[in-house]
């Protein structure tokens, strides 16, 4: 049953993240502060996971263990919640997070073609990160912008009516940008 996991990184990154000035122990201290603020709230797990993902850029396994331990929630349950929601990632993410919507409206208006063009252009599969750590690719399940289908979100920007032929151009803008928007938001 013990199988190698994709990018089994147990430790949070220090270099690829915009928070590179923070050491791992400082980040874990920040995580504790986040947990403290939610400690007495029922159903705190999901908001804590969201905040932790903002802090680390993804959800490293030692962070999940720490969250489970502090909330007295078994590790298997924490992992179950994380793996249920496509929003959460346990793999280190690149500077830019690309999420292609495959919700019903986007799906019927060509979301799948957009996704395969995106995979081809980036040379990675869903859940993976490009070698230069510039892009990670995920699938989204409806961003609530069905009228604009098919939709691609890159970091916090919504791109409407995306055509497979325009993808290179679209990504180029992010590749050239000096300060990726998502990382700025996360810190």
């Amino acid at each position, binding site marked *: 049953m013990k199988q190698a996991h994709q990018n089994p990184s147990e430790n949070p990154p220090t270099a690829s993240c915009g928070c590179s000035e923070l050491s791992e122990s400082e980040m874990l201290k920040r995580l504790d502060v986040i947990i403290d603020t939610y400690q007495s709230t029922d159903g705190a797990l999901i908001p804590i996971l969201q905040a932790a993902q903002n802090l680390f850029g993804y959800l490293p396994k030692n962070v999940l263990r720490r969250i489970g*331990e502090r909330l007295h*929630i*078994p590790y*298997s349950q924490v*992992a179950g919640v994380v793996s249920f929601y496509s929003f959460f990632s346990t793999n280190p993410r690149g500077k830019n997070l690309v999420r292609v919507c495959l919700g019903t409206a986007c799906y019927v208006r060509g979301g799948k073609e957009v996704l395969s063009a995106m995979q081809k252009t980036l040379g990675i599969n869903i859940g993976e990160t490009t070698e230069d750590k510039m892009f990670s690719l995920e699938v989204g399940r409806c961003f609530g912008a069905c009228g604009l289908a098919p939709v691609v979100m890159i970091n916090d920007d919504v791109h409407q009516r995306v055509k497979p032929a325009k993808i290179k151009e679209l990504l180029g803008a992010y590749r050239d940008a000096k300060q990726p928007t998502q990382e700025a938001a996360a810190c």
Partner: protein
Amino acid sequence: MIKLTIDRNCVEVPPETTILQAAKKIGIIIPTLCYLQGKDPIGACRVCVVEIQGGRNLVSSCSTPVNEGMVVFTNSPRVRKARKLVVELLLSEHEGDCQICDRADDCELKTLAYSLGIRESHYVGEKPKRSLDTTTAALMRDSGKCIKCRRCVTVCNEIQRVGALFPQNRGYKTLIGPAFELGLDDVPCVQCGQCAAVCPVGAIVEKSHVDMVWAALEDKTKHVIVQTAPAIRAALGECFDYPPGTLVTGKMITALRRMGFHAVFDTNFTADLTIMEEGTELLMRLKKALVDKQPVALPQFSSCSPGWIKFTEYFYPEFLSNLSSCKSPQQMFGAIAKTFYAQKKGVRPEDMVVVSVMPCTAKKFESTRPEMSSSGVKDVDYVLTTRELGQMIEAAGIDFRALEDGQMDSPLGLSSGAADIFANSGGVMEAAIRTAYEIVTGRGLPTENLHIQPLAGLQGIKEAALKLEKVLPAWSFLEGVELKVAVAHGLSNAAALLDLIKAGKAQYHFVEVMTCPGGCIGGGGQPRFTTDEVRQARIQAIYKEDEGKSLRKSHENPDVKKLYEEFFKDGPCGHKSHELLHTHYVDRSDKI
């Protein structure tokens, strides 16, 4: 009360009753796969769907409460069609190695498919990823057979509060198991096997020792002996279609002898020995606290149940010193079999094979603990569950129901009624009090039939108090002391009790914990399916066994007395007994 009609029968039930429960009341059994008695319905399997007159969709009867005037059909053409479809879809994803599956005999999915008349598979397609988890000593998981009913998740999280299993991923890719496809051994699994006991299919089963035991029985160079736990005799009969609660002690002994064991012994014997050691340990702790005024860990916790031990090691390491240092009866047996008995018999411990029959899967793990080799070799070589023994008897072609009654062999076969009740929740405590009370006061326990009523039954946490008066001079420090005891079964109840003790909200001298609901009679290795009714029936059988003996108290067991005279000459908790009968525990809290 609410009146409704189910399949043209009128029924009146209290509000909040589900359709499933109401139907059962009038003898209509709606099939289920994910439903677990006494737990919130999950509604995952959809097998229990029924039709409600005027309703647009079929509803799951396990999770739908009754309504006044409701008209329910549990067997309409629409219901049958839907149920069949649901089961066919489950089968399409299920790795059906039916002929060679551990559950070939009692698979709920197979039985259901048969009764619904499914004779061909219409849906052949992609199957989910299959992987085998063999990381623990006791259990095996096969994700290909899992039908995602989540019964195991409910017992692991709610009844046992262990949380090793949880649904991972979503939709078609859902896997039931530990975090990130880790093995069970990589998460805090206590190996109690309650998951295996409730699994409707062969997705979680015990790791079989059957072939190893057959091989040992064939090996002419080995002296192979067997011990049977107290809970086996009240459940083994179920493997041979006896109703739950049928005592088959004598037939079990004859069957084991016919299988070729050189001697048939009783874990009950070392249960009596456990009472001597554990009772003495308790009195020593009390003396230390009350006379010497020294800090000592109280309450003392019983240590017979290996799942409970591992649970404490993972989740409550601060209580490790409260655990009695006594080994469990299984391990005490192994230790004396390969020393005392081996010397008597003139057999080297390495030429002896000790086989246990246990109602438990965690006992398989316990026998592999490195601390359990005090004879110089592994004290207990193989552990069979009740189910495995049933299977072996069948394979040996033994007509179990036709067997004559046999007797346990000497010198490790004689036991008191106090040892029998080790099988059920409250029994270890009652056995301990029967002996401790008499040692301290010189008088027999003054309760009816030697039972302690508040400790019996299936309530999760039970308490009792007993005032010690007119004690013997040697125990004068206990004069007037009110002995307070508690009993918990099911690890969620144990955890609740530990939290109370930790918070200073409850104080006891002695606490008994059994891992499985109902105690060992409800163990993870018992014949399926263990409901509360089955637990009650097995418990009654055990009390019958106890009451049927003239020997009712552990300290009166003549063979135990002889063992102390001949072997453990410095008495209970003496130097030699510490070497062989006591152990220590490991803090595993860094592994959660």
